[in-house]
């Protein structure tokens, strides 16, 4: 087995990377509940929640939009990702290699690695804001693009260096710390919301005797539906719903979680993703946005989205520890995975060195506050970039055989690059980004939906041409 294969194995758990998971190694429902709850209650939730308030969202739009979007996300895991995962029981990388060929998978790894790098950068940014509370250096404002102080740069460097070195040594220890911290972290996130709510009640003098009074407080003081902050897209119900649905698009529609759910006994175990969605992407986002709305209520000119000070104001040192651990435990495996994705491109390189360099890139990215302050845009882009390959996997698995074509064509033909799949990816991405460029930034949150159909149609049409152009020999057929 070559280094590339090994690194792809490690990337998704290190077991059964080039063979289906055997029956004896399947996992029960409980394993997935804990995993999803932990994975989706991360440091970045503390940055995303406030950005909804900065986008001028109203109470109805944010609450109902998040419920609808999270339900759609869970349904995407159940009906798109899990059925393929539990039938093929292969990792995404191996499934893609069979369909697209090794060269195209390498390109996919590059895109994946770059996206992971920036995502890890945002997590480093979140952790570094906690250091600002201790060391009192000037921290970035909402619309800052470049680093604004030496203190900020040093804080990011310090956090990034620690995370990168630990990731380079392997992330098993951090993964264990993450498991231990998960239940504690979820409760601290909920406490943020409860404390923020009381602070609002006290600051506004609102009389709260029923849930309806809480709702009135939410509508009039927390999520007021006011104008967005300058330079921000105004968020409506539809923006919130599509954002909640697509922020993990790479995992469900994009099929990254084939690597996880291939261990599930039944495809309905995809429903376990609801724990992550409703703890992390509902309660944690709402709690963080309450803290930010309270900050604005106290000082409307203080628009900075800084999870460290927000958490410290609410629950003191526990909040700072939560911000550091939440950022650290999620940035670490992300840098590790990015390193593995890059290593797959240069198989002879040392994983230690590649992970360190990857951590360095993430750290440099983290110095630019625009990454965290524009996290909503970045997360939408992240899903969009990886989504077309999910459409290719879906079509290849379900539709291609029904259309009289052959699935897993790269494997059958022995070709290193299935250009039908490559074109489906690149053309879809070019069309979607072109539309965003022409129509405006707001459409970035919606374009992935038509994009999925565009990718599917292109893959079907081009597969027909490609499979005629590259016929199988009698032995291959």
């Amino acid at each position, binding site marked *: 087995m070559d280094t590339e294969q090994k690194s792809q194995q490690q990337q998704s758990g290190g077991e059964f990377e080039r063979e289906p998971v055997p029956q004896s190694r399947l996992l029960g429902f409980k394993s997935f509940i804990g995993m999803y709850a932990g994975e989706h209650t991360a440091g970045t939730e503390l940055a995303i929640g406030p950005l909804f308030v900065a986008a001028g969202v109203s109470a109805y739009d944010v609450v109902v939009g998040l419920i609808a979007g999270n339900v759609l996300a869970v349904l995407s895991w159940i009906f798109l990702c899990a059925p393929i995962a539990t039938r093929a029981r292969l990792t995404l990388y191996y499934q893609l290699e069979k369909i697209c060929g090794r060269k195209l998978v390498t390109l996919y790894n590059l895109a994946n690695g770059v996206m992971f790098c920036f995502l890890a950068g945002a997590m480093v940014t979140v952790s570094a804001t906690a250091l600002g509370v201790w060391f009192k250096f000037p921290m970035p404002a909402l619309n800052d693009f470049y680093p604004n102080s030496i203190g900020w740069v040093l804080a990011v460097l310090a956090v990034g260096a620690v995370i990168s070195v630990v990731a380079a040594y392997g992330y098993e220890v951090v993964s*264990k710390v993450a*498991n231990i911290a998960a239940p*504690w972290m979820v409760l601290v996130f909920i*406490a943020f919301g*409860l404390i923020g709510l009381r602070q609002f009640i006290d600051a506004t003098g609102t009389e709260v005797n029923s849930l309806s009074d809480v709702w009135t407080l939410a509508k009039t003081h927390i999520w007021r539906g006011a104008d967005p902050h300058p330079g921000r897209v105004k968020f409506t119900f539809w923006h919130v719903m599509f954002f909640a649905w697509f922020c993990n698009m790479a995992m469900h529609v994009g099929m990254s979680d084939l690597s996880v759910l291939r261990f599930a006994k039944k495809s309905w175990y995809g429903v376990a993703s609801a724990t992550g969605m409703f703890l992390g992407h509902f309660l944690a986002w709402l709690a963080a946005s309450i803290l930010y709305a309270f900050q604005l209520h106290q000082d409307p000119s203080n628009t900075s989205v800084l999870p460290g000070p927000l958490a410290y104001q609410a*629950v003191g*040192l*526990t909040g700072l520890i939560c911000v550091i651990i939440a950022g650290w435990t999620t940035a670490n495996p992300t840098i590790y995975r990015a390193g593995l994705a890059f290593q797959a491109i240069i198989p002879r390189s040392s994983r230690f060195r590649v992970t360190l360099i990857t951590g360095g890139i993430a750290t440099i990215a983290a110095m630019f506050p625009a990454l965290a302050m524009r996290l909503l845009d970045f997360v939408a882009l992240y899903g969009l970039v990886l989504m077309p390959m999910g459409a290719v996997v879906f079509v290849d698995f379900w539709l291609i055989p029904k259309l009289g074509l052959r699935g897993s064509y790269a494997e059958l033909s022995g070709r290193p690059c299935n250009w039908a799949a490559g074109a489906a990816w690149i053309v879809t991405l070019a069309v979607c980004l072109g539309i965003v460029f022409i129509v405006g930034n707001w459409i970035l949150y919606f374009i992935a939906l038509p994009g999925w159909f565009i990718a599917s149609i292109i893959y079907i049409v081009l597969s027909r041409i490609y499979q005629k152009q590259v016929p199988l020999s009698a032995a291959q057929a």
Partner: protein
Amino acid sequence: MRTTTILMIVSLLALVALFLPSILFLAGRMELGTVKWIMLLATIVWFVAATPWMWKQSG
């Protein structure tokens, strides 16, 4: 085995102690300063008590 059971109970109580003050604060029954101290104490107890048995469980 007995130590693990005790640690599990202590961990669970730490989580209760972590969460309860925020509910009491919401109900107007506790000062924020007290909430912060209890949450910090509960955090320390959680990590001290949960680490030994959860570390083993996560392989």
